[in-house]
């Protein structure tokens, strides 16, 4: 087995036993990136030299007996995390040459443990998209079928793990941006509860929805990486100061006493038959493992996408105002005055989907429309959150599909934004509710594309998700299949 095929946990064990060095492991991943990325385009920036220097430092730390759980482990970061000294583009032309002077907290935490930064991975521009086709650095290809999209917006994070270019990556999830690409690429992705992981230094798309999470090969790795990044950060006022449990302790087999709810709204029309079959099979597996299966209802599900595209775009229209070319970022060469400098720089710097969302959000917040759109959407959001809280009165975990279909083909939906938006119909409600959800492999389509299973937990009950996911994973073989690339 090559080093690049190892899970994060295996790498940990091997490093601790001195079976190989961090430098050797890092070299293996860098070689893998060099060999496969021309086909995938998962990386925007590869930090080869710096990664080897960090690996050497990690090896010294290991030799000194001062190892933390991530010391010497190579990782990839979505290019939305500020990384001091390494450019942070957010997959946008407007930040194509931007180098941040500071580290995002989530990155600072893995760095402090001695993780090695392999590079910055591709994404939809400003995390706006569900296919990773909205990148100023080109689309990412799905490692299972390069004619297909990897999902988005954390397409690079999911693709690079699926292709074993990195053993794990960090992504962000605003409406499904970790879970949907994880499902499409056959890896594990977790969106923690809003407030569980600091957003400080994560380039904002929609501040009330954005959340950082891990993308990994399996559930154990997910717990390991979550452990490293979770917890209160005084630099993020919305991060929550509640104790971080030992997530590894949640990795138990058997589901006796666990009540799993199936929301009827998630199994209606429009659900691909392969996806339905795989998810229903997963339900049977959970029942076999001892779980009690119940039907639940999330009655406002149908309003979630509309609600999301008002709130997220409203926040985005404001969050993206700072890209005015005054202090940093792309500035037009052709402008005679201030207004032209603004409008041309932004016109040249932002892609079409980003502009579409800025305009939608600006409209939703405009005087005279605010009550009808933004305020109404906030009320709907409260109802959607209440749906989940009501359902959690009777069940511990909610189970359903991640996306209505497996990965679609490149360009299949680019002409129809609404169709694209609907691919997030099962993931968006979780962000609106602010709770946690995990995606893990539960089967394959007729054409060999991975299918994801979504587990939704109570606020701050990531351990519940890890328990169910781990038990399911141990009882199945899906996570052991590798993309052909």
């Amino acid at each position, binding site marked *: 087995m090559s080093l690049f095929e190892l899970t994060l946990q295996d790498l940990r064990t091997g490093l601790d036993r001195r079976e190989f060095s961090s430098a050797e492991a890092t070299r293996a991943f860098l070689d893998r990136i060099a060999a496969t990325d021309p086909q995938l385009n998962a990386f925007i920036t590869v930090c080869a030299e710096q990664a080897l220097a960090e690996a050497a430092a990690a090896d010294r730390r290991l030799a000194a007996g001062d190892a933390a759980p991530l010391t010497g482990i190579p990782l990839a970061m979505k290019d939305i995390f500020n990384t001091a000294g390494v450019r942070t583009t957010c997959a946008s032309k407007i930040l194509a040459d931007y180098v941040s002077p500071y580290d995002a907290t989530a990155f600072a935490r893995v760095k402090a443990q001695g993780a090695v930064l392999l590079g910055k991975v591709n994404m939809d521009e400003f995390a706006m998209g569900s296919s990773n086709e909205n990148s100023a650095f080109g689309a990412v290809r799905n490692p299972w079928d390069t004619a297909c999209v990897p999902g988005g917006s954390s397409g690079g994070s999911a693709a690079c793990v699926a292709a074993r270019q990195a053993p794990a990556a960090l992504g962000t999830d605003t409406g499904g941006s970790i879970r949907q690409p994880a499902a499409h690429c056959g890896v594990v992705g977790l969106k923690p509860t809003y407030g569980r992981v600091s957003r*400080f230094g994560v380039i904002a798309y929609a501040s009330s929805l954005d959340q950082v999470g891990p993308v990994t090969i399996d559930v154990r790795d997910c717990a390991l990486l979550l452990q490293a990044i979770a917890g209160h950060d005084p630099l993020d006022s919305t991060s929550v100061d509640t104790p971080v449990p030992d997530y590894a302790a949640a990795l138990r087999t058997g589901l006796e006493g666990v009540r799993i709810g199936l929301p009827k709204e998630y199994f209606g029309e429009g659900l691909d038959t392969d996806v339905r079959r795989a998810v229903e099979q997963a339900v049977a597996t959970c029942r076999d493992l001892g779980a009690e299966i119940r039907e639940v209802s999330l009655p406002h599900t149908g309003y979630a996408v509309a609600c999301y595209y008002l709130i997220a775009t409203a926040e985005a229209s404001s969050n993206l105002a700072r890209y005015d070319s005054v*202090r940093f970022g792309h500035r037009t060469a052709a402008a005679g005055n201030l207004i032209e400098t603004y409008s041309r720089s932004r016109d040249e710097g932002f892609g079409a989907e980003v502009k579409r969302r800025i305009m939608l959000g600006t409209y939703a917040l405009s005087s005279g429309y605010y009550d009808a759109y933004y305020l109404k959407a906030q009320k709907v959001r409260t109802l959607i959150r209440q749906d989940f809280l009501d359902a959690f009165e009777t069940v511990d975990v909610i189970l359903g599909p991640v996306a209505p279909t497996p990965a679609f083909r490149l360009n299949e939906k680019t002409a129809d934004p609404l169709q694209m938006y609907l691919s997030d119909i099962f993931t968006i409600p979780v962000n609106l509710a602010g709770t946690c959800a995990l995606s893990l492999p539960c089967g394959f389509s007729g054409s060999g594309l991975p299918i994801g299973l979504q587990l939704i937990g109570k606020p701050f009950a990531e351990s519940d998700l890890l328990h169910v996911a781990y038990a399911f994973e141990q009882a199945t073989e899906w996570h052991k299949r590798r993309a052909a690339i």
Partner: protein
Amino acid sequence: MNYEVVIGLEVHVQLTTRTKIFCGCSTAFGQPPNSQTCPVCLGLPGALPVLNYQAVEYAIRTGLATNCSIAPQSVFARKNYFYPDLPKGYQISQFELPTCRHGWLDIEGEWGVKRIGITRIHMEEDAGKLVHGEAPGSSQSSFVDLNRAGTPLLEVVSEPDLRSADEAVAYLKKLHQIVVYLGVCDGNMEEGSFRCDANVSLRPVGQQEFGTRAEIKNVNSFRFVKQAIEYEIERQADVLDAGGKVVQETRLFDAQTGMTRSMRGKEEAHDYRYFPDPDLVPLEIDAAWIEAERAQLPELPDARRQRYQAELGLSAYDAEVLTAERAMAEYFEAGVALLPTQPKAVANWVMGDLTRKLNDSGQTLAESPVTPELLTGMLRLIEAGTISGKIAKTVFDEMWATGHEAARIVEEKGLVQVSDTGAIEAIVDEVLAAGAAQVEQYRGGNEKVFGFFVGQVMKASKGKANPALVNELLKRKLSGE
């Protein structure tokens, strides 16, 4: 036509917190451009605001001092607009749920006592500053200095209760006095720590609904506020008298010409697209916090003024002067505490010689070499008859120069008052003998020359003669022994 003037003021009060409202950068004035900045106040991608709780404390105190109710929950909102001095493309402010609401201030003047409503006081961050063409050979360039960006401000919005420029100035002075008293603002109007926008409109006397208003921006002295409002009243009256309509617009006051000119019209007015800032949680202020801030409030000028009159027997004028500034009131009270029998004497010296010395030297009360202890020490010598009031002026100057106690100065300089009747009588005799002509005048009915004799005696005694004794002896001798 006769018009009634309607004025509402929006005052920006810059708070004296050591650090900015949403980051740890210093708020010190006059530092090299952009030297007091960080990812948060530069608006760099990914940076997030964290509220400075001292700014909240100051907002609560200001709200309490202006009779506002403090909202148990207030919400920070984003005010969206593009300008190069606004790094994030939005200003974090408060919109629907400000921290303080429904307050008032009483102003006094020729109109008597009038209560002016305060609609709201909200917290917000300041923008940066643009510097145009100051670098060599770059007259076409503009530079952005973000040292000020993120400095905490309170915006105090009055009700449209003011009816003249004088009322507006009285209100402003009152508010200025309070925030400086509280220590939440340094009150420096030149540096922009206390600045004002005025909404001015006219309506025919008797009409209920308000006329169309113009907003005059950033007027940075009391005098300019008066000038700007008076100009604006006249301008609007001319427009109305000519049958025209006042345009709703923003106008800029030009201190050079004393006029206001149009800056932007209603159609160019911004739609700020306010919405709650998702990066900040709602600000919760409970009763215990409010009481803790109430306990920090100093006695405010109005209460002090009334107490000085009622309990210390001072005149309204003296009470007004002594309470105008907190430092002076506290100095005065320290003096009264040391010499409770003589509040009037303490008041006279504080308002007289001490103020004169401070003005001459440009020093503040905190820097005064004459402390309340030194001053009252001297007043005790007067009370005991050791020195005269006249000699005391010399002693005071000496205290100012040396910082020594009055008793020591009196002793070293031999300034003890002469109350020895024999010694004074000898001088009186000499003076009367030398001024035979004036004695004749006095006895002929010209009593004004009495002062001449007093002066001569005091001069001859080098000011040390006890004035009461001098008077008594002179009277006796002039009336024919």
